[in-house]
């Protein structure tokens, strides 16, 4: 066995390296730095179809992440999906007539919410609702439409 001093040094090194590895996993590998929304406020939006949108998905404006989706519920009165977003408090100047759209990053990527700014002077406050929304593009519907159009084109020629 080593003497007490060098043993303690080794154990100290080991524990420090382990904690460092944990910190690296949390900050460098994981998303601990970007996950938190600073004193955010909530905005709601109603969509006809949310597609594959998930809780925690990004809310972006001009491609920059400004918040995340905190809840997705079904509104049984309007037969629509109600999406609640947590937006960073630093971005409190989103015009009232902005529109929210569910977009897809890449062909097979995750779905996220993109906000197009409007022109009004009044800004969205905590608990407000987007007036204009654009639902998710459902690939199956598009494919179905294309096939239907093709079929109706070729039908009269026979």
């Amino acid at each position: 066995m080593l003497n007490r001093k060098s043993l303690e040094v080794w154990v100290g090194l080991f524990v420090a390296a382990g904690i460092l590895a944990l910190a690296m996993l949390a900050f460098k590998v994981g998303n601990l730095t970007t996950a938190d929304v600073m004193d955010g406020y909530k905005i709601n939006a109603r969509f006809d179809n949310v597609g594959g949108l998930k809780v925690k998905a990004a809310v972006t404006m001009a491609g920059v992440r400004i918040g995340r989706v905190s809840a997705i519920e079904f509104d049984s009165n309007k037969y629509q999906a109600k999406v609640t977003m947590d937006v960073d408090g630093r971005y409190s100047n989103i015009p009232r007539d902005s529109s929210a759209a569910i977009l897809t990053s890449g062909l097979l990527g995750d779905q996220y919410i993109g906000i197009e700014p409007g022109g009004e002077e009044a800004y969205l406050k905590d608990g407000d609702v987007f007036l204009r929304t654009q639902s998710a593009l459902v690939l199956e519907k598009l494919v179905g439409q294309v096939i239907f159009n093709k079929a109706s084109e070729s039908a009269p020629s026979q």
Partner: protein
Amino acid sequence: MNTLRILGSIVINSVERLGRASLFLYEVLAGSWELLRRFYLVVQQVYAVGVLTLLIILVSGLFVGMVLGLQGYNTLVKFGSANSLGLLVALSLVRELGPVVTALLFAGRAGSALTAEIGLMKATEQLAGMEMMAVNPIIRVIAPRFLGGIIAMPLLAALFSAIGVLGGHLIGVGLLGVDAGAFWSQMQNGVDYRDDILNGVIKSAVFGVVVTWIAVFEGYDAVPTSEGVASATNRTVVYSSLAVLGLDFILTALTLGDI
């Protein structure tokens, strides 16, 4: 009739052992409080089971990461998504391979050593000697080793995952030409600190408790002969490996799926 008797004795023996092991765990946990005053005993064991296991963990972590990089690249490049290599390497390491492979190596390297050491102490009647001197061997010998293992295991798993990610980076970015920016950004977007990293840490902590528990119990419960110590060491490796793999499925199902 004889077969039935054998079956019965197997069942009774294993239930008895399980009961002894639980009582033993309770005694060790109850004795652990005494160690706060003599923490140096634990530090010594962290050295024995942690620092001395470091080399095998780091080398295996590096190679596992490098193999993941190679294999993942060859699969992902077929789908044109080689940029997700970082995500693949990090998720497989943090969620599964880090805790599980570390626990298996830990059982083989540190667990077997713990069992052999304690078993030999019992065989040479050192534990009985301590009792004669009114020293509780559970507090003086077992509890420091138990706590040392519990402290060391999550740190080892974190080191394994971290160096594995670096190994994947080495192969993916250095050798195969994946873009470094995409490698890290896809990883950071896809790996969640609570769902993935904290889960991995919880897994490795659970494995640490189970593996060290099995190791010290097998040593303490060993038949005090050289043969008995040998079979106890053997059982430690077999049981803790099986326990780790079985528990891994249960923990993954609990945290990942909605079962």
